[in-house]
C-alpha cells in the first residue's frame, strides 16, 4: 500500500520535470502507473476469490471426514456431544423459514412503497420519504437485534395473539371490502340493465357479511393463541422484513423509474387508471429489476446474523408443523456465530470445520443469488437499450 501512495506522487513529479523530449519515459511511467492501478484494483476485487478459497479450504476437511449425507439430511445437530452429530437440515429449514417470512412481508410492502415513490407521490414528498428509508438502512443490525430481543419479544409473548388478530383486521378488512366490491361488479356484469344495480348491491353485501364473519371467527381464534416464547421465527421475520425493506424499495424504485414516461403516457392515453398503468405496464416492464430487488432482500435476510442470533430462540429443530412461525428456530448464521466461541480452540476438529461448511453453504447461496440478480439487471438494461 505504501508503494501505491508513493508511485502517483513520483509520477506527477517526473511529469513536471520532463520536457517534451522525454516522451518515452513518460509513456513508460504512464504504463507503470496503469499497471499499479490495475494491481490495486485486482487486489480488492480478488479478495472475494480469497474468501472462497479459504472458506472452501476449511470446509473440505469436514466433508472429507463426515461426508455429505448426514449434513444435508439429518436434523440432529449435536456438534459438541460425545458422539458428535452434524445434521444441519434443521438449520437450513430455520434459515429458509425466517427468510421466507421476511420476504413474504417485505416484497409486497416494498414494491407498494416503491410504486408510491415512483408514480404516486409528488417530488417534494419524495424528498421527505427518502431519508426514512436511508435511516432504516443505516441503523446497525445489532440495534435491530436489541429491539427484537428487548422490546418486541416481551410484547409478542404477552400480547402476541391480540397483536396478530389486530394485524389480521388491518389487512383483512380493506382487502375483503375491495374484493367484495370487485367480485360484486364482475359477477353481475352479465345481468340485464334493470337487475344489475340491485344484484350488485346484494352480492357485495353478502360477500361483505361473509368477510366479516370470517374475520371475526379467525381473529377470535388468533386472539387465544399463546406464544410460549417471544424469541421465535415470527419476531425475527418481522424485524428482518423491516431491515430488507430499504433494499427492496430503493432497488425496485430505480427499476420502476427507469421504465420511463413514454410507456406510462401511452397507457394513460388509452384510458387506463394509474393502478392499471402500474400493474399492466410499469411492473411488467420493470420485472427483472424487481426480481433483482427481491433477491437482494433475500440475501439481506439470509446473511443477517445479529438479529437471528439474538431473537430467534436458537433451538436447532424443525418447527412442527414446518411452517409454524411461532416456534423458536436456529439459522445458519446464528449457528456459526454462536458455536465458534466453543469451537475455535479446537481448530482442526470437525466441530470447527463444520462451521466453515455452513459458511460455504451461505456463500454459495448468496453467490447464486447475486449472479441471478446481476443477470436480471443486465437483462432489463438490455431490454431498455
Amino acid at each position, binding site marked *: 500500500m505504501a508503494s*501505491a501512495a508513493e508511485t*502517483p506522487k513520483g509520477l*506527477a513529479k517526473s*511529469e513536471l520535470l520532463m520536457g517534451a523530449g522525454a516522451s518515452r519515459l513518460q509513456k513508460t511511467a504512464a504504463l507503470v*502507473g496503469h499497471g499499479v*492501478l*490495475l494491481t*490495486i*484494483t*485486482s487486489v*480488492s*476485487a480478488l479478495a*472475494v*476469490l*480469497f*474468501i472462497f478459497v479459504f*472458506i472452501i*479450504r*476449511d470446509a473440505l476437511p469436514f466433508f472429507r471426514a463426515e461426508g455429505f449425507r448426514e449434513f444435508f439430511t439429518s436434523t440432529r445437530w449435536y456438534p459438541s456431544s460425545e458422539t458428535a452429530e452434524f445434521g444441519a437440515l434443521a438449520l437450513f429449514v430455520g434459515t429458509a423459514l425466517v427468510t421466507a417470512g421476511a420476504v413474504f412481508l417485505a416484497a409486497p*410492502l416494498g414494491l*407498494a412503497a416503491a410504486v*408510491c415513490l415512483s408514480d*404516486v407521490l409528488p417530488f417534494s414528498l419524495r424528498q421527505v*420519504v427518502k431519508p426514512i428509508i*436511508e*435511516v*432504516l438502512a*443505516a*441503523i*446497525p443490525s*445489532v*440495534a435491530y*437485534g*436489541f*429491539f427484537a430481543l*428487548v422490546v418486541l419479544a416481551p410484547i409478542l409473548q404477552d400480547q402476541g395473539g391480540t397483536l396478530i388478530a389486530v394485524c389480521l383486521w388491518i389487512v383483512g378488512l*380493506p382487502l375483503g371490502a*375491495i374484493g367484495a*366490491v370487485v367480485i360484486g361488479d*364482475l359477477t353481475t356484469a352479465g345481468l340485464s340493465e334493470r337487475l344489475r344495480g340491485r344484484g350488485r348491491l346484494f352480492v357485495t353485501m353478502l360477500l361483505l357479511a361473509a368477510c366479516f364473519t370470517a374475520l371475526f371467527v379467525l381473529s377470535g381464534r388468533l386472539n387465544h393463541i*399463546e406464544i*410460549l416464547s417471544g424469541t421465535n421465527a415470527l419476531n425475527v421475520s418481522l424485524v428482518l422484513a*423491516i431491515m430488507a*425493506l430499504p433494499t427492496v*424499495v430503493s432497488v425496485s424504485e430505480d427499476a420502476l423509474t427507469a421504465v420511463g414516461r413514454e410507456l406510462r403516457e401511452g397507457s394513460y392515453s388509452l384510458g387506463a*387508471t394509474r*393502478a392499471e398503468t402500474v400493474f399492466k405496464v410499469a411492473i411488467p416492464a420493470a420485472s427483472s429489476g424487481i426480481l433483482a430487488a427481491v433477491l*437482494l432482500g433475500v440475501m439481506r435476510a439470509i*446473511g*443477517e*446474523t*445479529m438479529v437471528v*442470533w*439474538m431473537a430467534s430462540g436458537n433451538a436447532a429443530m424443525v418447527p412442527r408443523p414446518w411452517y409454524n412461525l411461532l416456534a423458536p428456530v436456529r439459522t445458519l*448464521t446464528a449457528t456459526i*456465530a454462536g458455536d*465458534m466461541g466453543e469451537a*475455535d480452540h479446537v481448530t482442526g476438529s470437525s466441530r470447527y470445520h463444520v462451521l466453515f461448511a455452513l*459458511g460455504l453453504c451461505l456463500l454459495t447461496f*448468496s453467490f447464486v443469488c447475486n449472479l441471478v440478480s446481476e443477470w436480471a439487471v443486465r437483462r432489463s438494461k438490455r431490454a431498455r437499450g
Partner: protein
Amino acid sequence: MRLSTRKMLDRSFSGLGFFSIGLMALALVVLLAPICVGGVKAIVFRGTIEHRRFLLEKMGRGDRVAVEAGIEKAQETRLPVYARIEEFEKEMEGKPRSERRKYRKELGELKEALRELLGPMPGETRPVLPRDQYGQTRWDRASAKLRDLLYVESYDYSNSDAMGVEVFTPRSETFAGTALEPLFPYVETHLAEMLRPRLTFYWGFFTDRPIDANMFGGIWPALLGTIYLTLGAMLIAAPLGVIAAVYFVEYAGDNPLVSALRSCVSTLAGVPSIVFGLFGLAFLINTIHVSEGKSVLAGSLTLALLVLPTVIRSAEEAIRAVPNTYREAAMGLGASKWRTVTTVVLPAALSGILTGTIISTGRAAGETAPIIFTAAVSVGKPLRIWEVFTQGTPALPWSIYNLCTEHEAVDEIRHVQYGMVLTLVLAVLSLNLCAVIVRARISRRQAG
C-alpha cells in the same frame, strides 16, 4: 368493470402505497423511540446518594464534603431499619427453636433484599465486589428493588392449562406480630430520605471505564474500540476503494478482465457479513497470523473488506458523475491523463466520494458479525494506540450483544445496554447526517 369500481381500485392502490410508506415511518418510530428513551436514561436519571458515593470513592469525582454530609444524613434515616432487625433478632433468641427456624430463611432473604437496596449493613465486613459495596445507584432500580423487599414473588401453577401466574405476597404478612412488622411501611415511606435521589447528568457514561461487569461506570473501552476499528477499516478501505473506482471509470477498457473484476466486486458486496468473520479468522489470524489472536488490526482488515464494495461503488458513481467536458478541457490544456484525474476529476468528485465514504464508515461502525471472531473481546481495557496491532478490544456492537444475552444480571443493566445502543445508533446516524450535509453543500456550490 364499472368506471367507479376501477376508480376505487385505483384509489385503494394509492392507499396501499401510502400505507406501506406509513408503515416504514411507523417502524422507524417504534424502533427508535424506545432506544432513545431508554438510552437517555443511561445518562440522565435520578441518581441516589449511593451513586455519588460510588463516583467519589471509585472515580475520585464529586464534592467530598457534600457527599459525606449526604451519606451521614442518609445513614441517620437508615438506622431505625437496622435497629428493628437487631430488635427482631433479640426477640427471636427468647423464642423456642422451632419458631426461630421458621423465621431464619425469611430473615436471610429480607436482609439480602435490604443489602441490595441500601448496601452492606453497618458493622459488616466490606464485600469484594463493587456491586455488593453499594446500594442502588439509580432511583428507578431502587424502586424495583423496594418491591422485592416488600413482596415475595412466586408463581402459581394451579391452572395447569395456562402459564404460571405471578403472585406477590407482602413480606409484612410473614413477619406479622413481630418487631419487624413496622419496618416495611417505614422503608416504603422513607426510601427517598435513605437514598436521597437527585436528578443526575452522568456524562461519565461515555468516558468512564466499566466497573464490575458494567454494573457501574461507563462504556469508554467499547466506544474507543469501535472508533479504532472503524478508523482502521476506513484507512484501509477508502484509498483502496477510490483507487479501484478511478481505475474502473477512467482507465479500464471494455475487456473480459475488467468485467470479471467488476463481477468480483459485486459478489463481494453480496457475501454475508458472518462469512467475512470466518474468512478473517481462517485467513488473517490462522493462516498469515497478522496477530496472535484477536486484534484490532485483524478486525479492521476484515471490516475494510466488508465495506470495500460500497466504497468502490459510491466513488465510481461520483467519478462517473463528473461531466466529460471537465476532462476534455483539462486534456485540451495539455494535461496528461494522470494529471487530469488528480487535479480535475477527483476534486470535482470529492463530495460524492466523501459522502459514500462517510456512509460506509457508519456501516463499518455498526457491523458486529465480522468482528466477533477477529477483534471483539468481552472485557478489556481501553487500548493504547500501539496496542491495536496485537490486542483485541471491546467494541460497542459486540458489547451490546454480550450484555443483553450473556450478562449474569441482564435486567439490572438495561440502562447500560440502552445507552450503548443509543450511542451506536446516534454515531451512525450522525455520520449519515454529515454525509447528507456534505452532499447538500457541495451540490449547492456546484449549482451556484
